[in-house]
């Protein structure tokens, strides 16, 4: 059995734990940000080291390789310029049609690049920390994406760092639609695919949905958080659930969440 000092210590720790757990959510978030701020010097040091290593790697690259890279980038630049010119024409045309139909104007996205500096140490959440915070204009629930598609949303904002909850986490429900069939559904986390965090489930699709593997799934803007049209992934397979009332589809996310390094935060 435990002795008296053990009971006293246990009592103190239980009181401390309950007091912290029962803090109002706003206060708890502030305390959490204050505690995580202790790690800012380490994050800074880690970032500087990473940059120094990259720089050192660049200095030892042979000239031949650098020239080949410049050639390739110039070719890509030309192609992208052509594509941008085409898209600009289409955008003008789109804007003209929208004004003719008296539809509201599309607003350009204000994107802020950010680096992923840490991952959730607990295995039961899918979150990352980025090096942008309220000083950069980041707000809670701001959508986060990268060149491949949707990454998640900002869940907590500190002054210099923020926490992003990734698609597939139980705290990140996304309203989506299948691009071809316009079927609406909601992304739910899946734990049925061991070791593959790139598969999630889309629930609440109608039972008559005409789905097929490979169809693209995009955000639908119904939740009010994510703008319409961000690529989420592609359908892998589907099946009926709840005695045939709904269809559930498994989708492969277009973003590899295990290899996230740089993302963009969509500012309001």
């Amino acid at each position: 059995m435990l002795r008296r000092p053990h009971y006293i210590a246990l009592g103190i720790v239980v009181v401390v734990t309950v007091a912290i757990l029962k803090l109002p959510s706003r206060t708890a978030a502030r305390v959490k940000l204050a505690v995580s701020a202790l790690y800012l010097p380490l994050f800074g040091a880690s970032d500087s080291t990473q940059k120094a290593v990259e720089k050192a790697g660049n200095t030892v690259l042979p000239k031949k390789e650098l020239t080949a890279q410049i050639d390739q980038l110039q070719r890509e630049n030309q192609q992208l310029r052509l594509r941008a010119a085409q898209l600009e024409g289409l955008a003008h045309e789109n804007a003209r049609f929208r004004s003719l139909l008296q539809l509201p104007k599309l607003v350009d996205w204000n994107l802020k690049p950010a680096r992923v500096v840490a991952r959730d140490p607990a295995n039961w959440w899918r979150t990352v920390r980025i090096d942008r915070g309220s000083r950069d204009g980041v707000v809670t629930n701001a959508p986060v994406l990268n060149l491949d598609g949707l990454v998640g949303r900002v869940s907590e904002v500190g002054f210099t760092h923020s926490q992003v909850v990734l698609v597939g986490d139980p705290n990140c429900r996304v309203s989506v639609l299948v691009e071809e069939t316009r079927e609406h559904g909601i992304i739910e986390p899946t734990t049925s695919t061991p070791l593959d965090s790139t598969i999630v489930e889309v629930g609440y699709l109608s039972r008559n949905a005409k789905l097929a593997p490979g169809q693209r799934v995009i955000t639908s803007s119904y939740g009010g958080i994510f703008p319409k049209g961000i690529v989420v992934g592609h359908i892998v397979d589907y099946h009926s659930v709840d005695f045939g009332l709904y269809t559930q589809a498994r989708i492969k996310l277009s973003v590899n969440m295990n290899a996230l390094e740089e993302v963009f935060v969509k500012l309001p």
Partner: protein
Amino acid sequence: MTSLHTALILATAFLIVFAEATFGGVRRLFGAQVELLPSLMIYTGLSTGLPTIALLAICGGLWLDALSANPLGVTILPLFVVGLVVQRYRGLILRDQRFAQMIIGGCASGAVPLMTLIVLLNTHRQPLVGWISIWQWVLMILAGGLMTPVWFRLFGWLTDKFMYRSLGETSFRPDREIKRGRD
């Protein structure tokens, strides 16, 4: 044990949490992140007193929860319970045996996530738990078991380098000295 020993343990816990958050090698290789605070708690429970155990549980738990999506404070109690039990029964544990260290470290690394999960479910959160969690749990047990002897060696070395060692009592007593020769 000195306050320097406590400070070294807390500094190690701080760095462990940082490493778990930033080093993704294990996660990429095995699909799960390992949790090393329970194994450090075993060392602390077997080598220090209750104040250090409580400090490690509170500080380590807060640091871990602050960098995670966990509600603040859920990890404190599981860590402390493990430390408390080990400290209470440390007379029965062969703490110098590497095999015993590994076994007890593995058990602690399995117990802490389970207790944390129970606390977490009582706060009405929905953690991502499924079949994959069993694999993650096994990996945590293995990593915790392997790391526990490392903490003993590391802190043994640090203690040698940074702390004074108390002198052992000699059998010499001046009043029992045999004086030879004539006076």
